[in-house]
Structure formats: structure tokens, C-alpha cells
């Protein structure tokens, strides 16, 4: 197992370097320039030239590439052109913000999705199954940004106007002055702020997971060994959760591998709408500002998470399926 992990990790190194090299040249060849934001009638071309020199953009592209590669390999992501601060200082905070959001919604996606899927499979063709199918398809087909806006409209604005017992904040990670609250109040404040964005981010995917879970569960439930398990007198819960679920998990694990990186980069819209200061917004801003070092650093993080996500999925396969372990 350890050898397998090492092999996979080593294999990822050239892959990551290849991806980053490609991205480096693509962003540099894209039209526009980090100094373009200074381009205005009041700023002389010489000033722009000096800015380019200060940022090292006057050098040939291959020289810039070698320089970037050198500092990258020593773990230095450089300075963000847009925010003029070390990316190493900037990234961890933003990454943590995104992780809070995406991990919560990941849990939501899989716990909710799997539960619904199981219920649907066990009660196939029942009213509950049909109803859940309808609801799942509804949320699955709604665009995230629309859901996000509807959540804000109902659970923030209308909830307050109509005097519901609880309304959720529409934006940000914490309320103004939260840093002075006691720890438990700060935590609660964060949870309250997480509800809408995590739900908006996760609910569509949860519906997707539910569909997969239902299909895969149905397949397993009709197998002979399930009938055997029931025949030897096991309780229904044990049959479902112990015998059927474990075998029905494989396709869902594939989804997990796919969703991990999506959650980092796919949160752009949700982060923008809920003013959540995470990776998605950082990446988009960096691209629009042609903030090359920041684009490279964020691309690296995402590429690394893609590789890692696949690795995690592979390891989980092995855990649930002894046949894969044996190979």
C-alpha cells in the first residue's frame, strides 16, 4: 500500500510540473498585462514601463519562466502583483476559508445524498421514492447561482421581513465585530454564516449523489447474498448498512474523487454571491488582473488537489473492495 502511494505521488510530480508550465505560458500569452489596470490617460507610458521593470515583466518569457520555476521549486510562490504581498502569506488564509465552506458542503453532499439514495432504493417505487426523485431532480437541475440568490431572498431577506424565528446572514464569514465575541459565540456565528453558502453549494450535488446511490443500491439489494443475509435472520438495518451499503459505495467514491477539486474551483459563483473570501474569488480576480504569480500559485493548489482527490478515491476503493487491495 505504501509503495503504491509513493509511486502515485512521484508520478504526480511531472504531471503537476507539466500542467503548471502549460498554464504559465497560456496566462502570459493571454491578451492583457498586469499593468493594464494603470492604463489611463493620466499615466504616462514611461511609468507603465517602469512598473513592468519593477515586476520583472520586461524580461524575455523564457527567462521569466526559469526564474519562476526556480523560486517555485524552493517553495517561494513570489509576490502577488495585485495585492503586493507574499503569496505564501496570502494563500493559507484564503485556502482555509474555502475549505471551511467546501468541507461542510462536502459532508452535506455525501451524508444527505447517500441517505436519500438509500431511502429511495429501500422503498423503491413508494411515494417517498417518487417524491424524493422529484425533489432531487429539481435541485439537480437548478443552476447554483439561482439557488444561491433564492436562498438569500427567502432565508435572509424574507425571513426577516416576515418575522421567521431565524434568518440567516446573506454575506460574509462572520458578523461585524465577531472577533470580540467569546469562542463559542464565534463558532456559532460562523456556523450561521455557513448555512446558506454551504447549502447552495452542496444541494445540487447532493441530489446527484442521491441518484447514483439509489441506482447502485438497487443493484446490490437484488443480489443473492443480500437475500442470504436476510435469510440467516439479520436485522434489516444491518442488512442495508453493513452488507448492501458497503458494496454499493464504489461509484459514490468515484464521485468523491471528482468532487474534491470541483469544490475548490467550483465555488466561484457561491463565494462571489455570498461574499465568502475564498479561493474561487481569488482565482477569478487574479485572472482578470493578470496577476501571474497568483494565477500560478492557485493553479498549483487546484492541480495538486485534483491529483490528491484521485489518490484518495483510489485508496478508498482499496478500503471498501478487497479485490482491488489484492491486485
Amino acid at each position, binding site marked *: 500500500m505504501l509503495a503504491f502511494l509513493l509511486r502515485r505521488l512521484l508520478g504526480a510530480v511531472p504531471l503537476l510540473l507539466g500542467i503548471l508550465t502549460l498554464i504559465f505560458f497560456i496566462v502570459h500569452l493571454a491578451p492583457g498585462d498586469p499593468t493594464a489596470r494603470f492604463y489611463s490617460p493620466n499615466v504616462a507610458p514611461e511609468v507603465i514601463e517602469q512598473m513592468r521593470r519593477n515586476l520583472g515583466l520586461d524580461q524575455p518569457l523564457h527567462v521569466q519562466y526559469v526564474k519562476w520555476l526556480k523560486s517555485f521549486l524552493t517553495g517561494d510562490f513570489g*509576490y502577488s502583483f495585485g495585492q503586493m504581498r507574499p503569496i505564501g502569506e496570502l494563500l493559507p488564509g*484564503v485556502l482555509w476559508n474555502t475549505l471551511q465552506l467546501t468541507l461542510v458542503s462536502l459532508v452535506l453532499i455525501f451524508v444527505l445524498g447517500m441517505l436519500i439514495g438509500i431511502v429511495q432504493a429501500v422503498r423503491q417505487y413508494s411515494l417517498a421514492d417518487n417524491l424524493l426523485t422529484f425533489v432531487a431532480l429539481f435541485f439537480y437541475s437548478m443552476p447554483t447561482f439561482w439557488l444561491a440568490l433564492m436562498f438569500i431572498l427567502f432565508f435572509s431577506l424574507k425571513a*426577516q421581513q416576515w418575522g421567521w424565528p431565524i*434568518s*440567516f446572514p*446573506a*454575506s460574509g464569514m462572520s458578523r461585524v*465585530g465577531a472577533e470580540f465575541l467569546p469562542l463559542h459565540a464565534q463558532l456559532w456565528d460562523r456556523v450561521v454564516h455557513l448555512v446558506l453558502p454551504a447549502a447552495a453549494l452542496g444541494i445540487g450535488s447532493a441530489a446527484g449523489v442521491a441518484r447514483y446511490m439509489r441506482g447502485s443500491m438497487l443493484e446490490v439489494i437484488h443480489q443473492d447474498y443480500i437475500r442470504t443475509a436476510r435469510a440467516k435472520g439479520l436485522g434489516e438495518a444491518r442488512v442495508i448498512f453493513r452488507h448492501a451499503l458497503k458494496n454499493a459505495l464504489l461509484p459514490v467514491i468515484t464521485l468523491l474523487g471528482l468532487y474534491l477539486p470541483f469544490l475548490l474551483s467550483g465555488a466561484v459563483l457561491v463565494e462571489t454571491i455570498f*461574499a465568502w473570501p475564498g479561493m474561487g474569488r481569488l482565482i477569478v480576480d487574479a485572472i482578470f488582473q493578470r496577476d501571474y504569480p497568483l494565477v500560478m500559485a492557485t493553479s498549483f493548489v487546484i492541480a495538486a488537489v485534483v491529483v490528491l482527490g484521485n489518490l484518495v478515491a483510489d485508496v478508498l476503493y482499496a478500503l471498501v473492495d478487497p479485490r482491488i487491495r489484492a491486485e
Partner: protein
Amino acid sequence: MIAHPFSPRAPHGWARPAALVLLLLLALAGCRDPDDARSAQAAGDGEGATPERGGVAVLAEHIDINQPMPLVFESNMDGDLQDVLYMALTRGVWRDGRLVYLLADESPMALAERYEYAGPDSAALVYHLRGDVRWSDGQPITAHDVVWTYQAVRDPRTASPRQDYVEHIDSVVARDDSTVVFHFAHRYPEMLSHSGLGIAPRHVYQDADLAQIRSHPTLVNPDQGRLVVSGPFQIGRWDQGQQMVLVPNPHFRPQPHLDQIVIRVIPEATTRLVELQTGAVDLVRPVPHDQIPTLQAQGERIRLEREEKRQYEFIAYNPAAFAPFADAEVRRALGLALDVPGILRALQMQDYALPAAGPYPPIFRDLYDPERMRPLPHDTARARQILAAKGWRDSDGDGVLDKDGRPFRFTLLTSAANPRRADVSQIAQQQWKRLGIDARLQQLEFNTFFERLVGREYQAALGGWAVGLSPDLTELWGEDSPFNIVDYRNPEVSALFRQALAQPTEEAANRYWQAAAARLVQDQPYTWLYYLDQVDAVSNRLRGIKIDTYGAYQNTWEWWIPEALQRGTPTRAGAAPADSPPSAAASGDTAR
């Protein structure tokens, strides 16, 4: 949004020669009629009410601060923050259609008590500074800070976007701690403006490498008062991309009424407005025009403030890329075909926009001339006549005019980031189609769009400019300017520009600018579409706020919130300040 999101703007953009700035989505740059502001204030404040101490004002902006420093500030947001953080020799305000410079007796943000013109042709300005002002770290503010600031802006290593300020300045000399002399190359109208930069603290930056000034420790981590400032507030806390907390600068007089100003970054316009309606924020700018009716329905809780028509949108025609555009009459016909008032009604903008006639929006009292410069009427019959007289007819019956075998077909570019312009370009396409003109639409990402404009790689483009408060037209229409995106050349106009620039005073220059503008309008290098208001929304909690030409942040020390409406102000001890009511303090409105 945002005048070009990264362009120098607001107070400091006003005065300088033609601070014309590309508009992206909703322009940020603002200005307003002072009467308007006063009346709004009176209505909102309850006239004569005495300001009460304490409270936290929460503002929602769509982008974060970038560079909170006078030498290098970049975006409109940075420009706004300059009004809060730094004093300058004089303080500009927009009064009755003119830019006026206030001294210390009228504005606590002005360093100078008085100034006088000196030298043989009055090409020097002598400023006398107040002696009682201090930086937020307690050091006195002196003439040497002024000298250092101008040296640093001039130094090419700084690569300061404010270098145009020092273009005509020969030297800046401190005669003593409280007297500073600006020597200009010649007398010209904008001497006061150009000596009005925000002043930076010399003692903090004098040993810094100017080429790396943007990553100076005080700028990377400006919070907890590390950034040394002179204005009413300093930076208490900065969570990048999230919020900036401003706290009073203990050395500024008069002391601000508020305990804190929190500037939150909320990129999505709808979310900003919901937060205003739920009471989580107190000021939102700008408000998209289509959201205004919703806010108006809120009644007295929210008042809408108008920043007056200083932006215009236009369609530019590039003759180099599409030969028929070389003819001024054809361009006029294209303009006549457009029903601008109809467009404004269709987009529900009629209350906040005015059909445009030329390069000077109506706020320029001395320059805007409604008699000489009228918007083109919507007159399709006349447009048809012109095109027919120029030999354009539909000879092959395909519905598109043609001439010498070539169809009247071109591509109209616009930036994808602006939904309003996408709508306008579609309406224009339809209205031209009735005349047999075939416009193809293309939307581009903003940077690419801008590059194509400045590179003159387009046939027609729908864009917008935010106009500086200086009358200078050369930045957009000068023969050598890269922002002359249609490559407009007219010797008569160029001669008028030269005469205008040679005048010592604004009054003398204005008639040349006006004549040049009138000639420009005759040539119709653009179809000027409309002048736009920016609309801001303010919660009724927040009083004393003055929003005018100088932006929304110009008098932060005068803002206040009635005690009964103050939210609990969190302090380090977790308690509310003594003067706030216990209920507001205890509720902690977690879910808001």
C-alpha cells in the same frame, strides 16, 4: 460598475487634466450637486439634530482596497479611502458646478492655512501650513513631508500613477517647517489641483526602496494603526477580501463621532442590497439602476443618493477599420437612427440618465451648453435621406444597404462584464436594422475589449468614460493620445486645444474648450448616448453623510448614528460602550 476598476479616481482624479477613465460595469466615480446632497442630508438627518457619539457604520463595497497610500493608490476604492486616511494641502470640493479648494478654516482635512501666488508670472505657489497637525503616530506634519511626497511621486522608481501631477512642477521647496513653495514651469489653471496630492509621512518611508514601495511593511500589514496616516480614521483591522475596520485616529481634530467604520467587500450587487434591507449594512454603492424601484419601495428606511451625471456612454466608429465611418454625415445618420430616450425608458434608466450631446456632461456649469450642444434627435427619415444621398441603397434586395457592391455591415464590440451595455447594443442593432444597417455584436472580456479599443482594432464599439472635473479634452481627442480611440484629427480642434492649454486661468481657457467641444459634436466621431447618474443607497440610521463630487467618504468624521439606533459596539472586553442602550448591546443580533 467601477470606472475602470483600477483607475485613479475620485477626489484626486477630479481636478487633474482630463481624468477620463474607462467605465467597466457600473461606474464608481462619483460627483453630485451639492444642493442635492444638502437637501438629502437635511431630509435624512432631521435638520439641526445634534450628532451623538458612538456606533459602528457598515459600508458595502464591491472590491477590496488595494494600496492605501497617496503615492501609489490605484483603484477607485483606494481613491475613496484616501479621503479618509490622508490630509492634503487643500481640500477640493465641487460647489455650484465648479471645483473649489478649501483651506484649513473650512476643512479639517486641509493642511494649509493660506496660499499665495508668487514669482514673476505667478508661476509659484506658496503654502503656509497649520502648526497643530500630527500624524497618527504623534509626529508633527511639516513642509518636509510635502517635499518628500512630491519627490517620491516624481522619482521614476516609484512608478507612481500620480506622475501627471508633477509634470509641470519644477521644484517643491520647504522654506521652513510650515512653509512650502511649489515652482511651476508656467502659470496654468490646474496649479492648485496639482499641488493637492495626499501627503505621505516622510519619517516612515524616507529610507525605503522606492521601487519596492508597494510592498512596504506598512502597506502589506497596515492594520493595528501600523499605517501612519493623517486623516480622521486609521486602519484597525484588515481581513483581505473580506472587510476593513477603520478606527478613529487619536491625533485628528475634530474627533470622529463614530467608534468604527467597517468596509465590507460584497462583490454581488443583489447581496449588497439584501444586506442593506436586512439592516446589516448602512451604505451601498453603487446601486444597479434596475434595483432602484425595489429600494424606493422600502420607504423612509433607505434613502437614495444620486451622484450626478459624470459618466457617459458612447458608440465609437473607427474609420480605419470600416471605411464608410470616415464620413461624418454617415456617422450622424447612425446616431439619428438611435432612439436614446426610448432606450433609457426600456431599461428603466430615464430618471438617472440624460440623452448625451457631447463630451461635457451637464455638471460642468461653465462648459455644458444645452443650446449649442443638443442630443441628436431620433429621426429615421433624416437618417435614411442621408444614407441615400451618400449612395447607400439595397440594390440586391437582401435587406442590407450596399454601395459599390459592399454591404453596410460591421461588428459592434462591447465588454462582456456590463449587462446594461449588452442590452443597449442589442437595441441599437435592432434600430439600425430598420435602416438596412447590419451590425454584428461581439462581447469581449474587459481587458481584451480595452486593448482592442486602445489598439484601434475594432469597427464600432460601445463603451463609456467617467469624466474628470477638469475641462481638458486632449486626453481623449488629442492627436497623439492613445485614448483617441477613433484617431480623430481635426486641425481646427487641435489649434483650439493648444490655445486652451496656453491660458493661465480656467476662465480664459473655458471658451476654447467649449468651442473645441462644439466642433467635435459637429464631427460626431462618437454617437454620444447618455450621461449617467450613479445611485447610492444609505440606511436612515447613518446621518451626517455628505455624498457629492468628492465621493462618499469625504466627511467621515461628521458621520453619526443616533444612540437609539446604534448596534452594540463590540469591544475587546466583549461589552458594549457605556453610551449604547443595553438591549442593543446584549442582543448581539447573531442572525441579523
